[in-house]
C-alpha cells in the first residue's frame, strides 16, 4: 500500500514574518508571532494532495441516482439499461445493502424524536437529491451517462416545503414517527413569574426576524475514496472530513465492524465549515460498496450535488419579546424559535444541533435575568441540516441585536447606550448566565466602546443627516456577541448524544536530530495548525518552529480525537499539544541535567540549547540531548531516554470569546441595493497564537456572514424543488462585493487553557448578519421602512421603501382630509 498517511509533514515557520529572523523568537516567544503559514507554500502552488487527486488504478467511479421529487414512494428501480452500458460495473440499490445500518443521530432526551437516515433510500424519498442508487463505472463520465439510464418509478406524495406548512393542521408527516413534524421541542425550565415581569415592565419591545437557508459551499466539495485491504481485512476510507475518528465510528457502526477494521484517512481538506463535521451517507455508502465489490470506489461531489444534496443550515424564525425597566435594563426575555431542519437527522449531532444551540445561547453577552424559550426543530421535505460555522448563533445574535436596537429606540438610550447598560461588566466574571453557562472573563463593554469609537458613532447622526441631504441613505449597525467555544465533554454530555466529544489528545515526539513530530487528533482543514501547533511546541522546547512537523488525519497514526469543529482546536488540541510539550520539555531537562551535572529545575530550554539559567556559557544543544536519548541511551540512567515522546490530553471547560462588529452601509433608494462602506471588528479571543491566522479566521467568517446577510439563499419552490442549484443563483460573495475589514483585538487571556487562548473560528460569521441588518435598518428608518429577514435582497429593500412611501402618502392624504 502506498503511503496514505494524512497530508504531507510540513515544517512550520519556514518563512517567518517580516522582522522576525529565522531561529529567533522575538521577545522570547513564538506564541504571538504572525508567522507565515507553513501550509501555504504547497497549497498555493498547487502541490496540495486532496482526496480528489488520488486515483489508484482500477478505481470505480461512483455517481448517484438522486431523487428529483421531494416526497414520494419508490415503486421501482430499473437499472437494466444502465447495466448494459459498456464500462458500467454495477448499480447498487438499497436491496444490495442488507446489513448496512442507517445513520441514526440520537439525543437521549424526551423532547427529541429519533429518525433514521438511510444510506440509500429503499421505499421512500423525503427530499430532492436523496440518493436512491449508486452507479459504479470505469470513468466519472460513464457513471453519469449510466445515471441517466436508471429508471426510478415514483409514487408522488404530498411534500412539506416549509416549516409553516409542516406545522399546519393536517400537514403530511415527513416521518411517521413525528406526525406533527416536530422532531425537537425544547422548552428548558422557564424563570417563574416571567409574565408578571413583562406586565409591569416600563418597556416591552419585540423583534421578529428570520433567516434564509444557506450552505457552507466549501471550495472542495465532499469527496471520498474507499478501498478494501485484503491483507488486513480493513475498509480504508479516504475522505474530505473534519472528523476522521467520528467517521470511523459511524462507518464501523453502520457496516457492523469493529473500529480497528475501518481506517479513515483525510489528507488535505479544502474547507468544511461544519458541513464535514458530520458523517455523510455517501461516506458510508462508498465504504459499504468497497467492501461489497472488493473494489476501490471514488465519489466526487459536483457543485450541483453540493448545492442540492449537501447538508444545509440556518433556516430559522425568531419571535422575541424583551422587558426593560425605565433605565433600560433588561428584566426578561421571552423567545419562540423555529428551525427548519429538513428531512433527516445528521449523525452524530442530530437535527437538534441548531434547535438547542439557539435556545441555550440566545442570552449571549447580556445580563438576562429571566428567560423563557421554546425552540422547535421542524421536519420538512428539504435537504437535512448540519452545523455551519456559528451554528444558530448568527441567527440568535441577529434576533437579539434587532431587539437591542428596538430597545435603544424605545428607551431613548440609543444603540450603544442600551447595549452598554446590559452587557456583562468586567467586574462580574466569571459570570454564570441564566442557562447555567460559566463565562470566563472578556471585554464585552470595552469592545463595544472601541467599535463605536472607531465607527464615529458619536458624530453619526450629523454624518447621516449630511448624506441624507445629498439624497443618500446611509446606516450604521452594531452587533455584540459572545462566542462560546471549545466545549468539553461536560458540556457535550449535557446534550445527550450517543457519542460525547470534547477532549483532545496529542503526541509530541522528538527524533534523534532534535526535530519534532506532533500527532494530533484535531484535523486542520484551513486553520493552519501546522503553524500554530509548531509555535506552541517551539516555545515549550526552546526550538525553532521550523523544526516541528504536524501529522493528522489518519486513525491508524494519531491518537483518538474529535477533529476540528466548534472552534475547539487551538484550545483542546493546542492544550493537549502544550501539555505534551511541557512533559517532553521536562524529559529534556532531566537528560540535560544528567549530562551537565546540574539540577533539572536550574535548566531552561531556549534558542535550541539547554542551559543553566543565568549561565549561557554552560549549555548543550537540544539536538545533542535528542541524539543521546536515542543513540547513546547507555549513557543515561534507567527511565531516561530510550526515545523522547509524550502524549497528553486536554478536556476544556469551555472558553468564551467576545466581539463587537460594526457596519456602515449605503442603501440605494432607487434600486434597493446595499453597499457596505465599512466593516469594523473588535474582538477578544485571549492570547493569539498567531495573529495573522486569527485575522484570517475573522475575515473569512465575516465574508460568510455578509454572504448570509446580503447574498446567499437556497430557495425551494412550493413543491420542495430546489431552485438555486448553481453559483449563478446561489450567490457567494466575491472579493469585489466586500469592503476592507478593519480588525482590532483586545486580549483577555483565559485561565482555563494552557496557552491562555480561546476558540475563535466562528465569530466572524456570527456577528456579520446582525451588524449588516441593523445598519440597513438604520438607513431605512429615515424613510420609515425596515426589513426583518436575511438575506436582504435589493427587491425586498425596494418593496419596503415603496410600501413605506405609499403608507406615508396615504397618511398625508388622511391628514389633508
Amino acid at each position, binding site marked *: 500500500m502506498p503511503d496514505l498517511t494524512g497530508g504531507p509533514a510540513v515544517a512550520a515557520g519556514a518563512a517567518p514574518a517580516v522582522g522576525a529572523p529565522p531561529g529567533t523568537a522575538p521577545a522570547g516567544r513564538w506564541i504571538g508571532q504572525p508567522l507565515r503559514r507553513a501550509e501555504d507554500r504547497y497549497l498555493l502552488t498547487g502541490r496540495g494532495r486532496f482526496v480528489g487527486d488520488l486515483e489508484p488504478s482500477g478505481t470505480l467511479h461512483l455517481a448517484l441516482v438522486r431523487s428529483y421529487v421531494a416526497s414520494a414512494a419508490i415503486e421501482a428501480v430499473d437499472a437494466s439499461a444502465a447495466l448494459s452500458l459498456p464500462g458500467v460495473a454495477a448499480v447498487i440499490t438499497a436491496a444490495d445493502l442488507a446489513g448496512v445500518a442507517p445513520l441514526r443521530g440520537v439525543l437521549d432526551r424526551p423532547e427529541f424524536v429519533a429518525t433514521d437516515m438511510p444510506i440509500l433510500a429503499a421505499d421512500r424519498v423525503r427530499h430532492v437529491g436523496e440518493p436512491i442508487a449508486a452507479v459504479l463505472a470505469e470513468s*466519472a*463520465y460513464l457513471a*453519469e*451517462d449510466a445515471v*441517466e439510464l436508471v429508471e426510478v418509478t415514483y409514487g408522488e406524495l404530498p411534500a412539506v416545503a416549509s416549516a409553516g406548512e409542516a406545522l399546519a393542521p393536517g400537514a403530511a408527516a415527513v416521518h411517521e414517527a413525528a406526525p406533527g413534524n416536530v422532531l425537537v421541542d425544547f422548552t428548558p425550565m422557564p424563570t417563574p413569574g416571567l409574565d408578571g415581569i413583562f406586565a409591569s415592565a416600563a418597556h416591552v419591545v419585540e423583534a421578529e426576524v428570520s433567516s434564509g437557508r444557506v450552505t457552507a459551499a466549501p471550495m472542495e466539495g465532499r469527496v471520498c475514496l474507499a478501498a478494501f485491504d485484503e491483507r488486513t481485512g480493513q475498509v480504508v476510507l479516504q475522505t474530505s472530513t473534519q472528523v476522521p475518528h467520528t467517521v470511523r465510528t459511524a462507518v464501523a457502526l453502520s457496516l457492523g465492524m469493529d473500529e480497528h477494521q475501518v481506517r479513515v484517512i483525510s489528507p488535505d481538506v479544502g474547507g468544511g465549515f461544519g458541513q464535514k463535521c458530520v458523517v455523510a451517507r455517501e461516506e458510508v455508502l462508498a465504504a459499504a460498496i468497497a467492501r461489497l465489490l472488493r473494489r476501490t470506489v471514488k465519489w466526487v461531489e*459536483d*457543485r*450541483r450535488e453540493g448545492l442540492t444534496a449537501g447538508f444545509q443550515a440556518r433556516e430559522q424564525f425568531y419571535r422575541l419579546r424583551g422587558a426593560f425597566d425605565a433605565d433600560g435594563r433588561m428584566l426578561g426575555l421571552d423567545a419562540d424559535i423555529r428551525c427548519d431542519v429538513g428531512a433527516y437527522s445528521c449523525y452524530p449531532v442530530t437535527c437538534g444541533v441548531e434547535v438547542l444551540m439557539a435556545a441555550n445561547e440566545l442570552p449571549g453577552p447580556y445580563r438576562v435575568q429571566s428567560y423563557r424559550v421554546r425552540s422547535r426543530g421542524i421536519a420538512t421535505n428539504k435537504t437535512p441540516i448540519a452545523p455551519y460555522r456559528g451554528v444558530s448563533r448568527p441567527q440568535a445574535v441577529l434576533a437579539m441585536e434587532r431587539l437591542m436596537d428596538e430597545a435603544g429606540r424605545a428607551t431613548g438610550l440609543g444603540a450603544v447606550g442600551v447595549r452598554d447598560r446590559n452587557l456583562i461588566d468586567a467586574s462580574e466574571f466569571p459570570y454564570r448566565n441564566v442557562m447555567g453557562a460559566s463565562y470566563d472573563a472578556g471585554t464585552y463593554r470595552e469592545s463595544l466602546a472601541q467599535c463605536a469609537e472607531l465607527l464615529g458613532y458619536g458624530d453619526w447622526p450629523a454624518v447621516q443627516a449630511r448624506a441624507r441631504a445629498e439624497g443618500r441613505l446611509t446606516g450604521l449597525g452594531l452587533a455584540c456577541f459572545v462566542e462560546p467555544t471549545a466545549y468539553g465533554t461536560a458540556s457535550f454530555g449535557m446534550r445527550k448524544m450517543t457519542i460525547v466529544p470534547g477532549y483532545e489528545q496529542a503526541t509530541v515526539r522528538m527524533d534523534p536530530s532534535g526535530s519534532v513530530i506532533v500527532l494530533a487528533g484535531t484535523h486542520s482543514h484551513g486553520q493552519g495548525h501546522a503553524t500554530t501547533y509548531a509555535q506552541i511546541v517551539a516555545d515549550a522546547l526552546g526550538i525553532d518552529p521550523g523544526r516541528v512537523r504536524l501529522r493528522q488525519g489518519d486513525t491508524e497514526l494519531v491518537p483518538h480525537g474529535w477533529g476540528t469543529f466548534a472552534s475547539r482546536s487551538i484550545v483542546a488540541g493546542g492544550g493537549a499539544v502544550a501539555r505534551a510539550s511541557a512533559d517532553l520539555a521536562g524529559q529534556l531537562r532531566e537528560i540535560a541535567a544528567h549530562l551537565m551535572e546540574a539540577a533539572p529545575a536550574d535548566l531552561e530550554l531556549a534558542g535550541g540549547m539547554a542551559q543553566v539559567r543565568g549561565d549561557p556559557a554552560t549549555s548543550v544543544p537540544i539536538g545533542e540531548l535528542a541524539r543521546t536519548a536515542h543513540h547513546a541511551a547507555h549513557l543515561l540512567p534507567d527511565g531516561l531516554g530510550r526515545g523522547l515522546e509524550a502524549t497528553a490530553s486536554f478536556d476544556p471547560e469551555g472558553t468564551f470569546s467576545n466581539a463587537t462588529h460594526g457596519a456602515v452601509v449605503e442603501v440605494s433608494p*432607487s*434600486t*434597493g*441595493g446595499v453597499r457596505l462602506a465599512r466593516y469594523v471588528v473588535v474582538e477578544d479571543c485571549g492570547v493569539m497564537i498567531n495573529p495573522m491566522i486569527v485575522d484570517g479566521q475573522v475575515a473569512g467568517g465575516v465574508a460568510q456572514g455578509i454572504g448570509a446577510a*446580503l*447574498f446567499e*439563499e437556497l*430557495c425551494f419552490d412550493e413543491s420542495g424543488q430546489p*431552485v*438555486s442549484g*448553481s453559483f*449563478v*443563483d446561489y*450567490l457567494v*460573495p*466575491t472579493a*469585489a*462585493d466586500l469592503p476592507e475589514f478593519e480588525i482590532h483585538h483586545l486580549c483577555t487571556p483565559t485561565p482555563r487553557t494552557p496557552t491562555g487562548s480561546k476558540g475563535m473560528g466562528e465569530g466572524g460569521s456570527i456577528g456579520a448578519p446582525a451588524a449588516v441588518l441593523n445598519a440597513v435598518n438604520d438607513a431605512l428608518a429615515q424613510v420609515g421602512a425596515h426589513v426583518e429577514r436575511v438575506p436582504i*435582497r*435589493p*427587491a425586498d429593500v*425596494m*418593496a419596503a421603501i*415603496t410600501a413605506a412611501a405609499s403608507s406615508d402618502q396615504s397618511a398625508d392624504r388622511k391628514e389633508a382630509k
Partner: protein
Amino acid sequence: MKPASFSYHRARSADEAVSLLAELGDDAKLLAGGQSLVAMMNFRLARPAALVDISRLAELRYVRAHDGGLRIGALALHRDLERLTDPGLLAGFGMLPQAARYIGHYAIRAAGTFGGSIAHADPAAEWCMAALLFDAQMVARGPGGERVIPVAGFFKGFLETGLRPDEMITEVRLPAPRPGAAICEFARRHGDFAIVAVAAAVDRDGGVCRDARVVLGGVAGTVDRAAGAEATLIGSSLDADVIAAAARQAAAGTDPPGDIHGSAEYRRHLIQVLAARAIGEAAGHA
C-alpha cells in the same frame, strides 16, 4: 456535471470550420470561448454530438476601423473590447469598453468572445444589446459563402438567432459610431448576469434628439428595443421630464419574468430606474 459524449474537431481556418460544420451535421456546435457552452454541456443542458473548436483562429481576432464604423472579428475577446484604447477605434464606440466591464470576471473576459456571445444570444448579454444599439450587421459564412444579416430580427428567441446550423459568424460590423451611448446594469453581485440592463443611445442635432435607441436586457426572451421610449425621445429636447417619461414607457411595455432575485414588478421598477440613468448618461455624451 460531466458532459455527455461528443467528438472534438479543431478547425485550422474559418473555411475548414464551415466545412466541418457541414460535414458533421446539425448536432455539431462551434466552440469559441466556451464560457456558456461548456457550462451548459456540463449540466447536460446542451448535448452537441460534435464540437468544432475555432478558438485558435487568430484570423478572426481583431477590432478594426472601417469607413467610420467598426469591424469586430468573431473571436475578439471581451477583454479586447474592454481594453480598447486606440482613439481611432474608440471614437463613438466608448460604450463598448463600458459594457465589457459588466461581463463576468477577468477570467471570463479573457476567454469569452464577441462573436460567441452574439451567436449564443443570451437575453442579458451586453454584446447582443450593443448589436441592437449600433444597428449591427452579422457576417455569416456558410457552405454557400458569406451573407450579411442585419440585427433587426436576428435575435429570434431565447438562445435562438437567425443563423443557420451550418453557418458561423466571422465578423460583426457596427456601421456607424454613436458617441451618445451608455449602458447601465443592476446585478446583486459584481460580474453576475444583470437582473436588468438598459443601454441607450441618442443622436442630438442642435437641441433636438434626431434618433434614439433604448435597448433592454434580461427582461424577456431576447434583448429588445423599447420602441415607445425611443419614439418619446425622438424630436424631444431630452430634458429631464422627457427622459423620465421615456423611462416609464420603457418599463410599461414589458412583461419581465420573476425569480428568486426579484419579482416582475421589481424588474419593471429597475427598467425605469436604469433607463432614466442610461438615457441621461447617453444624452450627456451626445
